[in-house]
């Protein structure tokens, strides 16, 4: 075992101990790499009675990610509860300011935490990891206000370590691209609506159907879709025939114009466009 693998395994033992000392535990569960790993470790450490994974269903939650969440929960026998959230009803969220995530997470935790506590789960956790701490994350304040803990971050788990341990545990999410909510495709100041979220989701789904794997974002710019691909796949899609197919797929989702970003996928791309940095 490499040093990195040894360190990651040690952190996982510490995580199991952390969870055991605070059981039973409810997890804000999205099916992303981090929360999937957290849920599976918790299930293994605490048993079925000691953990519950709670999914918040909302318009900005991609259907494919929900499907992944359910598959992971079923495969690893993690108890799941779903609840609906409605952050779009909050005009402060729908206006899409740069602290949009604060209002989204406030809506989520204000519904999830009482449900968890009513069922006897005194500890509520999320999948924030140590690499997230340097990013622009207004949602983190909402978590703090609702006493939601972030054990992966507290124990120093990097994304790479989570992926490494996920692979060891047989999680299908170990190499899954990051998958933030669909609202992240809309520039700050562009109102979040069900229609716009649906449009970007359809466009991304159509591009996956073309065979595009890895990092992918369709950024909404009104009539224009700006497509960000992984840098290792970008060249292929600048071929005239492939570009035509890509453009047709995105237009089919309702965009009049399609442009391919020449830098490729960049996490926080719209933060850069708006000059928004980490707090």
């Amino acid at each position, binding site marked *: 075992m490499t040093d990195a693998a040894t360190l990651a395994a040690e952190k996982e033992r510490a995580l199991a101990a952390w969870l055991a000392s605070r059981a039973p535990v409810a997890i804000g569960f999205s099916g992303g790499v981090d929360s999937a790993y957290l849920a599976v470790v918790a299930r293994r450490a605490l048993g079925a009675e000691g953990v519950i994974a709670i999914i918040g269903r909302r318009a900005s939650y991609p259907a494919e990610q929900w499907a992944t969440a359910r598959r992971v929960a079923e495969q690893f026998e993690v108890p799941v509860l779903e609840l609906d959230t409605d952050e779009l009803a909050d005009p402060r969220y729908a206006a899409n300011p740069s602290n949009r995530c604060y209002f989204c997470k406030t809506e989520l935790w204000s519904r999830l935490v009482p449900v968890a506590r009513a069922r006897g789960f005194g500890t509520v956790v999320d999948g924030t990891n140590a690499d997230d701490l340097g990013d622009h994350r207004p949602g983190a*304040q909402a978590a703090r206000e609702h006493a939601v803990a972030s054990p992966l971050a507290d124990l120093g788990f990097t994304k790479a370590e989570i992926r490494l341990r996920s692979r060891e545990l047989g999680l299908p999410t170990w190499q899954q691209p990051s998958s933030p909510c669909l609202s992240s495709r809309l520039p700050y100041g562009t109102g979040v609506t069900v229609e716009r979220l649906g449009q970007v989701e359809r466009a991304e789904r159509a591009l996956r159907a073309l065979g595009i794997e890895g990092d992918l974002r369709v950024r909404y710019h009104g009539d224009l879709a700006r497509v960000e691909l992984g840098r290792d796949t970008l060249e292929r899609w600048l071929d005239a025939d492939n570009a*035509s197919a890509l453009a047709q797929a995105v237009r089919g989702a309702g965009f009049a114009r399609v442009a391919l*970003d020449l830098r490729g996928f960049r996490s926080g791309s719209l933060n850069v466009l708006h000059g928004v940095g980490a707090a």
Partner: protein
Amino acid sequence: MSASGTGGAATHDAVRPDGDARALAAALAALGLPCNVEARAGLAVLSAGPASLPRFANAGARRALLALAATHGFTHLAVELADDRHFDAPAPRAAVHRD
């Protein structure tokens, strides 16, 4: 819910000024890549026609173009994939509509 700092109040975000589309277009033309440049705040959208796509395939060329765009105030650079059936170099457009 806290009403302090960036948490409870919606942040009022400043609009980033447009990059210099005209200057970037001139610079690209000087490099033998004539195209329309549309500025959408920090995003430059290049319209150069389907035949120009191979010019962007090389990673080194893309890096050079990104650096060039940055010198003219753009943080993002994208090439439009025109509808082949009726491509027509578009005239420069106004800034993107905001709600």
